[in-house]
C-alpha cells in the first residue's frame, strides 16, 4: 500500500536532517532561536505521523518515486511511528536540557558540533525506525554510530575521548559484520526489502552464516552481554543529555533491527534453542549489569550499567515471542514494546536527573550525594520516579511491561524467566536505593552549586511520562500492535 499522500514519513527524517545542516552552517553553541523551531517542527511531524498510522494503519513511501529495490523505501508501522514520536520527545527534552545549561558547559571547542551531530543523530534514528530494507537500516545505523561517537567527544575530557574511540571501534566492527551478513543475504535472495523477504529464509549455509554475522554485529551494537564492554564508559563519560539519548534510544536501534529481522523473515529459523539462547544472554546481562551497578562508585557509571541490565529484559522476551502459545506471544510483544518505550523515557530522565545531581555536588561519586535530598528535591524526585519504572514497581511503564512478560512466561510455563524478571527487579532496587540512601544521609556541610531549575523540570516531565505510560498503556499498545510481525501478530488484530 503505497500512499502518496503521506510525505510525513520522509519528513520525519528530512526535518532533523535539515536542521543538522542549518546548525552546521551556523555553528553557534547557544542557538535557541534556531534549535527550538527545529524541535517544534520535528515533534509536530512525528506526532502527525503517529496519529496517521494510528488512524490508517501501516503506511509506506518510496522516496523519489522509485519502487524497490533501488529506491529508498520507507515504511511506518506502529513500532516505527511510536519510536519516531518517542525520539522526537526525548530529543527535545535533551535539547532543552542543553539549552538551559550554563555557559560553562560549552568550554570545549568541539561543543560547536553539538547541534549538527544532535540533529544528525535524530535523523539517523528515524531512518532506522522507518527503514523498509536491510540496506537503509545499515546506512541509518552507521550514521547513528558516527553521530553518537561525535556527541560523546563533545564532553571533551580524555576519558570521553577514550570512550568515544572504543565506542567507534565497536560500532564499526558491529556494522561491518552486519554489512557482511547483508551481502550474503542479497546473494541468496536477490532483494534486501523486508517485504520481499517475507516468505522467510531457507536454512541454507549462506543464510545461516549471514544471520550469525548480522546477529553478532547487532548484538555488539545493542551492547548485549557479554558484548557490552564499550557501553558503560561511553554512556558514563558523555554529557548528560548525550548519555540520555544514547541509553534511551541509540542502543534500541540495533535491537529493533534484530527484532525486525528475526521475527520477520528469520522467524522460521528462530528455533527454540536460538530463542532460549537470546534469553540466557539477556539473563546474563541483567545479572552482570545489575551487579556492576551495585558496586560502582560513580553515579553515571551506575546508571550506565543499569542500561546494560535493562537491555537484558528485551532479550529475555525473545524466547517468549516465539517459544510459546499465541496468547503468550501477544503478551510478550506488548511487554517488549512497552519496555522499549518505558526504558527510553525512564533512562533519559534518570541521566538528566543524575547530571543535575552531579553538577550540584560537583562530584561523580554516589557517596558524595549526602544531604542532596534537602537541596535538590526535584532532581531527586525525578530520579526516584524513573527508578520506580526501572525497578518495575507499579504504577509505571516498566511495571506494566514486566507484568506482560511475566504473564507470557507463566502462560508458556517458562518459569526460569519468571525468576529472572523478578530477580532483576530486586537487583535494580538494590542499586537505585544506594543513591537514595546516600541522599538522605544527614550532616554533610552545605556546599552545593545551584543548578538550573529547568533541568529538574525536564527530567521530571520525562520520568512522569514513564510513570503515566504504566496506567495509560491502552492507546500506545494499540498503535504498537499495528503491523506487528505476523508470527506474533495473529491475536493482535491491528489495522492492516
Amino acid at each position, binding site marked *: 500500500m503505497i500512499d502518496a499522500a503521506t510525505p510525513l514519513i520522509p519528513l520525519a527524517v528530512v526535518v532533523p536532517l535539515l536542521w543538522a545542516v542549518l546548525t552546521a552552517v551556523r555553528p553557534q553553541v547557544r542557538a535557541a532561536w534556531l534549535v527550538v523551531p527545529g524541535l517544534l517542527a520535528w515533534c509536530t511531524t512525528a506526532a502527525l505521523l503517529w496519529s496517521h498510522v494510528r488512524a490508517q494503519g501501516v503506511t509506506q513511501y518510496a522516496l523519489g518515486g522509485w519502487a524497490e529495490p533501488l529506491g529508498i523505501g520507507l515504511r511506518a508501522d506502529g513500532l516505527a511511528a511510536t519510536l519516531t514520536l518517542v525520539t522526537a520527545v526525548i530529543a527535545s527534552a535533551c535539547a532543552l536540557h542543553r539549552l538551559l545549561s550554563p555557559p560553562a558547559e560549552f568550554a570545549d571547542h568541539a561543543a560547536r558540533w553539538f547541534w549538527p551531530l544532535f540533529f544528525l543523530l535524530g535523523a539517523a534514528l528515524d531512518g532506522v525506525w522507518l527503514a523498509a530494507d536491510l540496506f537503509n537500516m545499515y546506512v541509518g545505523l552507521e550514521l547513528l554510530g558516527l553521530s553518537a561517537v561525535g556527541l560523546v567527544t563533545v564532553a571533551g575530557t580524555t576519558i570521553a575521548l577514550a570512550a568515544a574511540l572504543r565506542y567507534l571501534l565497536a560500532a564499526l566492527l558491529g556494522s561491518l559484520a552486519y554489512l557482511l551478513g547483508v551481502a550474503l543475504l542479497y546473494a541468496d535472495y536477490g532483494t534486501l526489502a523486508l517485504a520481499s523477504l517475507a516468505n522467510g529464509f531457507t536454512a541454507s549455509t549462506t543464510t545461516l552464516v549471514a544471520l550469525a554475522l548480522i546477529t553478532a554485529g547487532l548484538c555488539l551494537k545493542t551492547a548485549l552481554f557479554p558484548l557490552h564492554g564499550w557501553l558503560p564508559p561511553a554512556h558514563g563519560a558523555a554529557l548528560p543529555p548525550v548519555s540520555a539519548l544514547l541509553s534511551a534510544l541509540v542502543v534500541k536501534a540495533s535491537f529493533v533491527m534484530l527484532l525486525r529481522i528475526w521475527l520477520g523473515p528469520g522467524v522460521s529459523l528462530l528455533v527454540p534453542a536460538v530463542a532460549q539462547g537470546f534469553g540466557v544472554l539477556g539473563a546474563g546481562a541483567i545479572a552482570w549489569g545489575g551487579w556492576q551497578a551495585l558496586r560502582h562508585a560513580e553515579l553515571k557509571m551506575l546508571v550506565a550499567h543499569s542500561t546494560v541490565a535493562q537491555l537484558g529484559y528485551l532479550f529475555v522476551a525473545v524466547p517468549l515471542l516465539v517459544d510459546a502459545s499465541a496468547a503468550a506471544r501477544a503478551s510478550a510483544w*506488548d511487554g517488549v514494546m*512497552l519496555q522499549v518505550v518505558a526504558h527510553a523515557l525512564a533512562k533519559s530522565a534518570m541521566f538528566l536527573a543524575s547530571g543535575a545531581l552531579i553538577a550540584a555536588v560537583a562530584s561523580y561519586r554516589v557517596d558524595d550525594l549526602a*544531604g542532596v*535530598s*534537602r537541596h535538590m*528535591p526535584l532532581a531527586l*524526585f525525578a530520579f*526516584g520516579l524513573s527508578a*520506580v519504572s526501572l525497578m518495575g*514497581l*507499579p*504504577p509505571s511503564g516498566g511495571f*506494566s511491561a514486566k*507484568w*506482560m512478560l*511475566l*504473564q507470557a512466561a*507463566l*502462560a508458556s510455563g517458562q518459569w526460569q524467566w*519468571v525468576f529472572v524478571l*523478578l530477580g532483576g*527487579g*530486586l537487583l535494580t*532496587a538494590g542499586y537505585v*536505593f544506594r543513591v*537514595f*540512601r546516600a541522599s*538522605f*544521609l*544527614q*550532616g554533610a556541610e552545605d556546599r552545593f552549586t545551584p543548578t538550573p531549575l529547568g533541568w529538574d523540570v525536564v527530567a521530571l516531565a520525562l520520568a512522569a511520562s514513564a510513570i503515566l505510560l*504504566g*496506567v*495509560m*498503556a*491502552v492507546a500506545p*499498545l494499540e498503535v504498537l500492535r499495528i503491523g506487528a510481525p505476523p508470527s506474533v501478530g495473529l491475536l493482535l488484530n491491528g489495522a492492516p
Partner: protein
Amino acid sequence: MSAASLPAWVLASSLLPAVLIFLLPESRRRTRTTLNLAAAGLKLVLVAAMSWGVVRNAPHEVRFTMWPGAEFILRGDALACLFAGLSALLWLFTTIYAIGYLEGAPNRSRFFGFFSLCVASTMGIALAGNLLTFLLFYELLTLSTYPLVVHRGTEKALAAGRTYLRYTITGGAALLLGIAVLYSFAGDVEFKETGSLRAVAESQWPLLRVAFGLMIAGLGVKAALVPLHGWLPQAMVAPAPVSALLHAVAVVKAGAFGIVRVVYDVYGIEFARELALLVPLTIAASVTIVWGSLRATQQTDLKRRLAFSTVSQVSYIALGVSLFGPLGTIGGLVHLLHQGIMKVTLFYCAGNYAETLGVHDIRELDGAGRRMPLTSAAFTIGAVGMIGVPPLAGFVSKWYLGLGALEAGHPWVLAVLIASSVLNAAYFLPIVHRLWFRNASAPWPDERSFGRFETSLWFLIPTLATAALTVGAGLFAGMPFSPLQWAMLITRREYLP
C-alpha cells in the same frame, strides 16, 4: 464532583496536597499546616459520604483500563470504608501530632509530602477493587514510607531503612508473583464479596494454593507475621508520628487488610476452607501472637516493646480471618479498627514521654503519672484495652475471636488468646505500675516545658481523642455505625450469598 467518582476524590484529597506540599518552600509553615489539616478533614468527610453509599447498598466505583486485560478499579465497598474510615480518622490525629512534633525541625516539606503520599497509598489500598490495583498501591506505600523511616538521616536510621526495604521489596516481589500466577489462569481478579475464584477448574487447585502461599507471604511481611517481622522493631528509629502511623495504621494494617481481601474477596472464605488454606494461616497467626508477646516482655525500650506488641496484636486480624464462621470474621474485622485506635494511643504516649521528659526506657518512667497525668491516663486506657479488659475496645475483639474459635472448631485457639492476654498484662501492667505507683528516683533525662499543660497541646489533643475512642468503641459497640456494627454488616454480606 460527581458522586460516582467519589473514590477517586478520596484518593486525590491526599495526592494533591502531597504534590502541593512538596512544592511549598520550607518556610511556609502556616500554609503547610492549613493545607494538611484541611486535607485530612476533607478526607474524613469524603469517606463518610462514601460510606453512605455502602449503607444504601450502592457502593461508589471508578474504573478504567490500564492496558488490555488489566483494569484499575477503586470501589468504596463496606470493607474499603472500614479501613479508609480508620485511616482517615487516625490520619487527622496523627497529622495534628506530627505538626507539633516537627515544630522547628528541618526537612518538613519532605516529611509532610511523603506523609500525604502515604495516606494516598493507604487510601488506594483500602479502595482497590482488584488485586492489581491493590498491588499498585501496596508498592507505592513501600516507596513512600521509606523516606519517613530514614527521615532523621542518621546511620542508624539508614540501616533501619535498608532492612525495611529488604523485607518489603522482597515481600512485594512475592506478592507480585502470587498475583501474576493467579492472573495467568483466572484473568483479572476482582474483589467480590463471596470470592471470585470458585470457577477455577480443579486441576488448577495446586497453583491456587501456590498463589495463596506467595500472596500471604508477601502480605505477611508488612503484616509482620513471624518470621517476616524483623523490619518492624528496627523501624522504631523513625520519628514518633511515623511509628504511630506505621505501626497502628498504614504498613502493618495494609498487610493485614490484604490478607482479609485475599481470603474473603479473592478466594472466598468457603472456597479457601475447601482448599485447606485456613488452618495453616490460623497456625501462623497463633505462633505470631504468642511469639510477639513473648518478645515484648523482654524489651526495655518503650517503643520496641510496643513494636513487638504490634507484631502480636496485628495477627489477631489474620487469626480472625482464618477462623471459618461469622463470629471469627467479626472479631478479626473489628480488631482491625480497635487495634489501630489503641496502638496509636500508646505510640502517642510514648512520643509524649520522649518529647516532654526525654524518656525512652521503661525503667525511667517511674512516677511519670504525676508529672503527666493526662498522657498516663491515656496510656493506661490503651494498655488495659490491649489486655482485653471489658468494657474497652480490646475486649470486644477478643470476645468475638474466642467465640469464633469455638465456632470454627479450634478450641486450642482459646488457649492462645488467654496466653496472649496474660502476656499482654505481663508487659503492660508493670509500666502502668511504674507510672502511677512509683516515685521518680532521678530527674527526667531531658525535660522540656510546654507552658500551662503537661505537654504540647498538639500532642495532648490526639492522645486524649484516641483514648476516648478506645473507651467509646467498647462502650457503644451496640450503637449503629460503631466498628462492631460495621464489621457485622460486612460479615453478613460475606456469608450470605
